[in-house]
C-alpha cells in the first residue's frame, strides 16, 4: 500500500492515509489489531486447556472441575473480546453484524428444535453432536453472512 498525507479537516486526524480504494484504512487496521490482540490469547488459552486436559485425562471429579474452569475462563475472555469488538464497530458494520447474528440465532434455533424433535421421536443422537450442532450452525451462519456483506 502507498500512503499520502491527507489534510486534517476536522482537527483530529493527522495521520498517514491509505491512497487505494481496496484493502483497509488505518482505522480498520487498528480495530482489527485490537480485536486480535484480545481474541487470540483467549483461543490460545482454550486450546492449551483442552490439549492439557486431553493429555492428562479427566478421570476424577477434581480434574473434571479443573477442566470446566480452565476452558470456561478463555471462553469468557473470548466473549469479552467479541463484546469489545462490537463496541468498536461503526454503524454499518454493526448493522451487518447484528443482522447476521439474528439470522445465525434463527438457524441455531431451527437446528436445535430439529435435533430435539429427532430425539423425541426416539432416534438415538450422539450427545456431543446434539450439543455442538446448533453452535456450529450458528457460528458458521454468522461468519458467512458477515463476510459476505463486509467483503463486498
Amino acid at each position: 500500500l502507498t500512503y499520502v498525507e491527507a489534510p486534517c479537516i476536522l482537527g483530529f486526524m493527522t495521520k498517514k492515509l491509505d491512497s487505494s480504494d481496496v484493502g483497509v484504512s488505518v482505522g480498520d487496521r487498528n480495530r482489527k489489531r485490537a480485536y486480535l490482540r484480545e481474541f487470540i490469547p483467549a483461543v490460545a488459552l482454550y486450546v492449551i486447556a483442552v490439549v492439557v486436559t486431553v493429555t492428562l485425562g479427566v478421570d476424577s471429579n477434581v480434574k473434571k472441575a479443573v477442566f470446566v474452569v480452565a476452558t470456561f475462563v478463555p471462553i469468557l475472555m473470548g466473549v469479552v473480546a467479541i463484546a469489545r469488538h462490537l463496541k468498536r464497530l461503526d454503524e454499518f458494520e454493526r448493522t451487518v453484524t447484528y443482522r447476521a447474528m439474528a439470522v445465525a440465532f434463527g438457524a441455531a434455533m431451527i437446528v436445535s428444535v430439529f435435533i430435539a424433535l429427532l430425539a423425541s421421536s426416539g432416534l438415538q443422537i450422539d450427545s456431543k453432536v446434539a450439543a455442538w450442532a446448533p453452535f456450529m450452525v450458528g457460528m458458521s451462519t454468522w461468519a458467512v453472512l458477515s463476510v459476505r456483506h463486509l467483503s463486498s
Partner: protein
Amino acid sequence: VKNQLKELRSSRGWSQGALADQLEVSRQTVNALETGRFDPSLPLAFRISRLFELPIEQIFFDEI
C-alpha cells in the same frame, strides 16, 4: 437516498480509506454509502456535511 459522496471524494483526490479515516468509519462503510447499500445515520450525515463543508441536502437527496 442517493448521494454525491463518490464524486465529492474523487474531486478531493481521496481514497475510500482516507475518507473512512477522516469520518472514523471503516472503508467498507464508505463503500456501502457510495454504492447506496447503506443510508447513514443523522450524526454520520452531519459529520460528512462538516467534512465536505456542504449542506446535507447537497450531498444526500431523495431518489425520486
